[in-house]
């Protein structure tokens, strides 16, 4: 595997950005797109476009087949049992909202508890907060330890006989902690509690096997997996998709509509109301193929090397403070510099083409716990090299110079 060859497959790196070679260290936010994905969108719109699942003309049938091919690709990629367990959404946010809304409607009532963790992204807290408002449920947070990880014991401590569902991240977008999700699922299932995994940061970087993990729900973001924006996946065990009510109403999700009443469509149409992000779904198949071609083991290995190199380099840099020290960690390094606000760091780094993120990364609960209003974050993708990390380190030194540190 040659990273330079892989990087050349991403058109964004062809040209200078503001007169700099782009050092893109914001993949936890959104990844760049390989040419095959961009071309697929263009080709679909220019040569093959039609809506799916409705008309019987040639283009409609061909588009429907392409759309369903992505479903099968995703099913295989995450080793789901059945292709009907794959629901397309507009993103991971919608996938989590779908579960919170429909599960909440059917199974949650006053006093019931939903168990999250302190390191959840807002998209895995706000949808549950709606239920707290609407149904007076309680939300509990399993605590992080000093390393910025959530252990199985921390989860166990917060489970009560009122806990109705557990919803946790696979991989923290701030500390990089990889949660012991398989063990969490086993523990939860021993108490008859279903588990949702927010896989936004897990799916782009880790091997996924739904049948092995055995979770009830797994939310995936397409645009973090070298895919287009506007596409997410909800994996859900078939028994849940059959059992839970539909999420949105509209065309495509019905069976029969009469003045007296409506029956809903079969899976997976039941959860895909209206015209979906057709071109994005079809192009997402290319993202899956792209990742399969490289091999998830190779992606994991490459990003681990970058992480180890980055941690070593930044730890040697005085006044850089790395947030969290989890044993199992993905390609994310959040840091602060004593005396420089993360937003100033990000602006100064940007001047040299080093793109990072600064802020609370949609994790205010976690930042409150860490007693930090904001952090700076460098996150890796398959196209990053050790040279990128060297440039990050040099730009950090420039920051320190400007602020006379």
């Amino acid at each position, binding site marked *: 595997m040659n990273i330079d060859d892989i990087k050349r497959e991403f058109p964004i790196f062809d040209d200078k950005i503001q007169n700099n070679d782009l050092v893109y260290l914001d993949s936890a936010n959104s990844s760049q797109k390989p040419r095959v994905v961009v071309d697929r969108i263009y080709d679909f719109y220019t040569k093959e476009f039609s809506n799916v699942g409705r008309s019987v003309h040639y283009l409609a049938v061909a588009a429907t087949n392409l759309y369903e091919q992505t479903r099968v690709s995703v099913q295989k990629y995450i080793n789901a049992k059945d292709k009907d367990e794959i629901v397309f959404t507009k993103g991971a946010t919608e996938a989590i909202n779908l579960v919170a809304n429909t599960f909440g409607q059917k199974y949650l009532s006053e006093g019931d508890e939903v168990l999250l963790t302190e390191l959840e992204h807002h998209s895995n807290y706000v949808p549950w907060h709606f239920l707290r408002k609407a149904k007076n449920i309680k939300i509990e947070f399993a605590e992080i330890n000093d390393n910025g990880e959530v252990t199985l014991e921390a989860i166990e401590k917060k489970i009560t006989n009122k806990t109705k569902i557990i919803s946790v991240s696979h991989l923290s977008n701030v500390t990089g902690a990889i949660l012991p999700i398989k063990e969490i699922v086993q523990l939860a299932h021993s108490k008859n509690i279903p588990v949702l995994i927010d896989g936004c940061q897990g799916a782009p970087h880790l091997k996924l096997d739904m049948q092995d993990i055995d979770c009830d729900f797994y939310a995936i973001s397409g645009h973090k997996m070298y895919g287009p924006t506007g596409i997410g996946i909800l994996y859900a065990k078939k028994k849940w998709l059959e059992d839970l009510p539909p999420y949105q109403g509209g065309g495509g999700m019905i069976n029969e509509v009469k003045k007296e009443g409506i029956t809903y469509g079969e899976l997976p149409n039941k959860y895909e109301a209206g015209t979906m992000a057709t071109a994005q779904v079809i192009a997402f198949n290319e993202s899956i193929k792209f990742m399969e071609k490289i091999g998830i083991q190779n992606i994991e290995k490459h990003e681990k090397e970058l992480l180890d190199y980055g941690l070593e380099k930044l730890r040697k840099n005085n006044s850089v403070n790395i947030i969290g020290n989890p044993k199992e960690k993905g390609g994310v390094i959040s840091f602060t510099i004593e005396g420089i*606000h993360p937003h100033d760091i990000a602006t100064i780094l940007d001047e040299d083409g080093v793109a990072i993120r600064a802020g609370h990364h949609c994790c205010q609960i976690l930042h409150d716990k860490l007693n930090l*209003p*904001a952090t700076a974050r460098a996150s890796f993708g398959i196209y990053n090299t050790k040279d990128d990390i060297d440039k990050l380190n040099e730009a950090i030194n420039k920051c320190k110079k*400007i602020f006379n540190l």
Partner: protein
Amino acid sequence: MDLKDLYQEIILDHGKNPRNLGKFDNYNKDAKGNNPLCGDNVHVYLRLNENKKVEDIAFEGHGCAISMASASIMTDMVRGKEEKEVKEIVTDFLGMIKEKDSLETNILKDDEKTKLMSLSGVKQYPMRVKCATLSWHTLTSALDNSDQIVKTEE
């Protein structure tokens, strides 16, 4: 774009050692402001006397060098001014950050204007404009006795 325009000495100085930081006891107006995008926040306290003059002003909060420097310079500048004058300065400053090339108000002396113009570098960094304007919007809210927390995002 030039970083030196954004991080001028005066900004770095006020950012590192903000003036008027910390609450005082006998304030009679205050307001909070948040920047939800970055988690920065500011709380402006002021005392308006019977002649509608800003007798004292201070702020609490945390944020980047730009937002701290902006609050620091702002509080320095409006102390001792009448409410009407303060409002004119705020409007002039926000207008300058938004579109105008210079400050127009006659209330400020030339050296005060130069000081405020040091914040004009943010114009080249649209994402950072909010850092410079948050404390100013919050000051307006405090003067207007608004209960609403100022947000940079709607």
